[in-house]
């Protein structure tokens, strides 16, 4: 279950969608809007995506994770649009027979999502300014 949404993320439904008696472990990761970054104060974030490619890249990530770990089920939802402090921007849920696998797969999915899936956030700082976040300065192609 992979999706982009402009609505608040229902992470309980996502978590339920990956639970099964074949799995002893479920790991859920939530990314939430944090107030302080390097001493600056955020009041909101705006997320923009390139939906068709983002969904293709999320599906690619799911397929890669399933080759590396004995994954039962995966669910990923990314929110787009205007998010306030504390709101959930992304939820990744994964179920596996054993917990080490679920932690590793969950971490892989969010780590790779952040370097590969075409979604961008714009900071709304408390001084009224806004700024696109474009991490690193790498010129290499993410793979």
């Amino acid at each position: 279950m992979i999706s982009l949404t402009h609505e608040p993320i229902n992470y309980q439904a996502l978590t339920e969608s990956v639970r099964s008696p074949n799995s002893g472990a479920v790991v859920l990761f939530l990314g939430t809007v944090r107030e302080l970054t390097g001493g600056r104060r955020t009041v909101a974030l705006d997320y923009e995506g390139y939906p068709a490619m983002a969904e293709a890249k999320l599906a690619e990530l799911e397929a890669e994770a399933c080759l590396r770990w004995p994954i039962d089920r995966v669910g990923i939802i990314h929110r787009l649009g205007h998010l306030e402090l504390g709101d959930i921007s992304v939820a990744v849920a994964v179920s596996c027979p054993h917990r080490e696998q679920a932690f590793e797969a969950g971490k892989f999915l969010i780590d790779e999502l952040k370097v590969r899936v075409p979604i961008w956030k714009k900071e709304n700082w408390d001084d009224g300014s806004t700024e696109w976040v474009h991490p690193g300065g790498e010129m290499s192609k993410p793979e």
Partner: protein
Amino acid sequence: MLTVKLFAKARDLVGSPTVQLAWSDGQVVAHLKQVLGEQYPALVPLIPRLFVAVNNDYAADSTAISQADEVACFPPVSGG
């Protein structure tokens, strides 16, 4: 003509979510970046960090593009 989608800061710098460029099928990604810089000088500082996606996948500078391809340009991603 080639239609190029722009996202995030690339779109803001150009001032439009898409641009149309004169194009001959078989010209490559490196050429696209050069043309964008010539036609949209505001984009030049971003070009060293610009990614080009062709048909929903990241493309290398040597990848050939045809007018039927879906092409997008954007800066490093920052989702999550």
